């Protein structure tokens, strides 16, 4: 088994969850702020 490799893939699932949460959070954040400013513009 190589160093860092997660045998049961739990870390991968957790990391993907964090990635999805952060990415979608940032997209919503950018859409709300950018959309509001552009809308008022």
């Amino acid at each position, binding site marked *: 088994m*190589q160093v*860092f490799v997660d045998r049961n893939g739990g*870390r991968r699932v957790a990391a993907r969850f964090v990635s999805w949460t*952060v*990415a979608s959070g940032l997209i919503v954040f950018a859409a709300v702020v950018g959309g509001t*400013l*552009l809308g*008022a513009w």
Partner: protein
Amino acid sequence: MKRTPRLHWISILLGLLVLMCVVSFHAYAAIRPEPVPVAGGHRELPDGAFALAFHGGPDPKWTPRTLERLDAAGIKATFFVTGAQVTRHPDVARRIVAEGHRIGIDGFRAEGDLATGLNLALAQAALADALGVHTRLVGAPAEIDSGDREHQDIGTLVRMSLRERGGGVVRLHDNGSIGGDIARELAKQPGHRFVFVSDEPPVEASARERFTGAVTTWSQRNGGIVLVVFGTAIAIAALLGLLRTLMQLGLAHTDRRLRRENEPPPWFAPPVSVVVPAYNEALNIAATVRSIAGNDHVADVEVIVVDDGSTDGTADIAEQLDLPGVTVIRQTNQGKPAALNAGVREASHDVLVLVDGDTIFEPDTIGQLVQPFADNGVGAVSGNAKVGNRQGLLGRWQHLEYCAGSNLDRQILHALRCIPTVPGAVGAFRRAALTDVGGVSADTLAEDTDLTMAVTRAGWRVAYRPEAKAWTEAPASLHGLFLQRYRWSYGTFQAMWKHRGALVENGPMGRFGLLYLLAFHLLLPLLAPVMDLLVLYGFLVADAPLGLIVWAVFLLIQTASAGYALRLDGESLRPLWAYPLQQLVYRQLMYVVVIQSLITALHGTQLRWMSVRRTGRLADAPGGRVRVT
């Protein structure tokens, strides 16, 4: 192979974009343009009524005083505020509303700063955050100028303010002392009444507006902190870069001097076994084996080609060469470490040269490579890997990196006695050292780094022999380069993690080697992008010549260091022109590689060997024009 993680790039890029917006907005809000009085349309007021319109605030000192004067006089006025000032002094803005006055917007950074609709949107956002309202009173209407910017005499100012008998909007300022005094005097004039500029009150801001206002307000106030964090990262990166250059210049020079000054020991000529692991190396294997077999070493040299289940006839090509002293072993595909171990088992000599299947040796490479073994404490020797295909920008960049990066690093680390990698392209090991560490491990994708660290930790010394040159084929495409470096970088992190115990051991690997890798192969590539980002920001948004100067000085130092490395290696300085260009694509690719490697490590993804597409072109290697088809 499972798909390597990618989603994090969206987060990283969006995160950087958000940070850039925060910093840019902070800088934008800090600029105070000249106020421009806006002459809007005529606003109908009741006959004989005057509306006092204050501009330029809220001001922390003068607006409260103006409010006191208005309160004492019993006048309600209209305040045309600027968005950036509202964010700076929200309590004053709140007091204006709390005392019954009306709020309008006059600009974002200064009076009349409504040139773009975005400024209006930003001013509304500031209002939404501070007061929770959205105003329809945007931009001042046509006004009677009180003259409070030009005159000081109250009598004159009052006369000017009341010069329109039918009434109107009187233009005043609450960011100075005189506006309140005029209001007080106006109130004393008989026969006048005072109204708002508009009877329409502000409406409640939507949740989206308030959220946006909270974000822009935070950015305006705290963008400076982000800049400080960026600046700290740049300072650390610059210090690390400088430290590395100083170490390179100092230690590499010392290393060379010691080599020159020390009496060369008698020529050492042990018998040597060369192990060549090969997987789908049909394009290069013939040239590799011929170059090894053509050595001028004065003792016996046996060559063992281990074909690791190639599907392109690599083993057949090696056998068809029919060279004396060359043995070909075939095995099912088990990976490079297994192929190396199989070759080592088959080898009959105690000095083992391990060489990749795409490498060309010079006739004296083996003889030079084994010289350090004259010292019984030396367990491994690194040779000097050189790029054999230097055509094109990518080839030149890699050539420069091999000389200015890897080889110079190796000289420093040789001086510190902690070379972390004997490259797979050209390295030699003492059999006893290999036995001590249990052979080549498959724990990491950088089996060469893993093995070298293990050998050092086992108490053996690792030497560097720059004269032992080997020519290797560098990836010819950006994608190929990315795959190779991704494997190297990820493998190095694996090896560092595997050997983290060295940090608490009494040996050079923990004291210097791991710290060196941590500082210059992990921290520096992670921090350096900030410098590029800030220079970009300087170009796009702000006048930031400092960032550009630091960047240019950094580049100059690195170019000089690369020139020195080329000279040390006996190479021509001509490819140096490509070095500044390297900063534009190549360096960024290396950041991507390091970040991707870290993320892959966090994900725990099983990464397999990613083979690089071979071209068989090694035109810059001696005799390298041979091309097998």
